[in-house]
């Protein structure tokens, strides 16, 4: 059995694990990342397929210059990454047979004004929103949709929020709680314009990889964690398997980017207290749905534009884009009526109908679905519904979780995963010195 020793071992090379590892290595901690897959980056990279770069999930830096991913790259001294777009991306909401563009400052108010039946309704909704953001956060005992029904039964207003909730939370407005949604909404207000990377998000993962290696860190792919070594309530390292051989990594700190459920399996259920097990059981629910990459000879939607369709059977989000070599692509995500349980086959059939309705010229433009993928279970859109805020620390001392299932309040997706890494690394720096 091969043995290694380090300060910090990270299980999983998703954006949370890579941000944590890059920060730690950059701060002088001897860091080893182990990754089960042959590639680095998890759901924050891309794979070339038939001449197209297909993101494994994430494809932009959501919060732009305020994004924890962007801030991490700056902090660890990574070189500038080339961007295709750093400005606002035009957003179109197709509701009630009309298109409405959302843009600029006060855009949400404009949208609500447009969607409301009269001035009274608009004021009622705006006041309620302001109060919920600035004064009293509604609790998790009610869904956001039900919360909104207290102030309006307008289908257009409900649809508007369904677009926002689906795009940012990866779930339906009748699934997320009012509390969850307002925690996400607060973060949206902090963020800047999203960054779209010229060569895709793999540039981020590559940059972090370089920082880790330049600072004497190691990243081992095709290396599967078998067990988190726990002694007397302390994490002591990780037992892994690499090319059929055992590998034991002894460390001061263990960071799991494998998701809290897998962390529990690796550490052994008996090592965790019951309250924690219960919390993970209740809170860790992946945000799921089906994602489509569509190619066409003629543009179906101008690049870059986001189109939300609320009149179709499912709410769909379409993003028009162009590859660096000028080919037209259309990304789409479709949110099932229940993200907890759905038939992918049925959702696919519905999507095809919605697609034809939204783009009547689909065939004429040479539209083709390059690949349809179901993001689900252990390979979801998001590890948990945003706003659930499971703690990064575990009951096992020196064992932390990072990633999109343990996102701090206000953030979503890969950006939230990077924020979880920031919180964890701050804590480590305050408690443990590099050996």
């Amino acid at each position, binding site marked *: 059995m091969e043995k290694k020793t380090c300060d910090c071992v990270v299980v999983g090379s998703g954006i949370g694990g890579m941000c944590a590892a890059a920060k730690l290595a950059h701060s002088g901690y001897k860091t080893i990342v182990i990754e089960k897959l042959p590639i680095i980056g998890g759901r924050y990279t891309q794979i070339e397929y038939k001449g197209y770069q297909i993101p494994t999930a994430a494809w932009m830096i959501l919060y732009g210059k305020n994004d924890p991913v962007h801030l991490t790259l700056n902090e660890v001294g990574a070189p500038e990454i080339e961007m295709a777009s750093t400005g606002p991306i035009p957003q179109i909401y197709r509701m009630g047979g009309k298109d409405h563009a959302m843009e600029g400052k006060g855009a949400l108010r404009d949208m609500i004004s447009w969607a409301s039946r009269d001035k009274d309704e608009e004021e009622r909704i705006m006041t309620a929103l302001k109060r919920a953001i600035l004064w009293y956060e509604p609790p998790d005992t009610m869904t956001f949709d039900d919360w909104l029904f207290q102030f309006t039964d307008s289908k257009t207003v409900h649809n508007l929020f369904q677009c926002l909730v689906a795009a940012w939370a990866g779930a339906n407005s009748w699934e997320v709680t009012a509390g969850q949604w307002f925690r996400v909404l607060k973060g949206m207000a902090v963020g800047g314009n999203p960054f779209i990377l010229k060569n895709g998000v793999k540039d981020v993962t590559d940059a972090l990889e370089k920082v880790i290696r330049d600072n004497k860190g190691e990243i081992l792919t095709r290396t599967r964690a078998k067990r988190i070594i726990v002694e007397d309530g302390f994490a002591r390292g990780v037992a892994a398997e690499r090319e059929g051989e055992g590998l034991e990594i002894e460390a001061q700190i263990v960071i799991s980017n494998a998701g809290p459920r897998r962390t529990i399996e690796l550490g052994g259920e008996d090592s965790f207290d019951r309250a924690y097990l219960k919390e993970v059981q209740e809170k860790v629910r992946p945000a799921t749905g089906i994602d489509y990459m569509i190619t066409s000879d003629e543009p179906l939607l101008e690049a870059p534009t986001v189109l939300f369709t609320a009149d179709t059977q499912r709410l769909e989000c379409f993003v028009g884009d162009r590859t660096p070599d000028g080919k037209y692509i259309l990304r789409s995500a479709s949110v099932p009526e229940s993200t907890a349980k759905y038939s992918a086959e049925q959702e696919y059939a519905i999507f095809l109908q919605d697609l034809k309705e939204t783009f009547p010229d689909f065939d004429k433009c040479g539209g083709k679905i390059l690949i*349809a993928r179901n993001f689900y279970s252990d390979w979801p859109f998001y590890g948990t519904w945003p706003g659930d805020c499971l703690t990064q620390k575990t009951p096992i001392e020196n064992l932390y979780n990072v990633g999109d299932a343990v996102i701090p309040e206000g953030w979503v997706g890969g950006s939230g995963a990077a924020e979880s890494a920031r919180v964890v690394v701050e804590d480590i720096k305050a408690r443990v010195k590099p050996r």
Partner: protein
Amino acid sequence: MAIIVAERECFGCALCVLTCPEDAMRIPPSFIVEIDKDKCTECRECLDYCPVDALSEA
């Protein structure tokens, strides 16, 4: 020998489709991956890429 799909585990994330060096895999409308036996060379690459261990060698 052949690569087999655990139908209860696979949900169609398509990582194997994207990385198969022989283009032998596809996601049908059932979202359970299908393997083209004529193209598959049993290189086992897909076993390493599957995030939920739904693929194995029989």
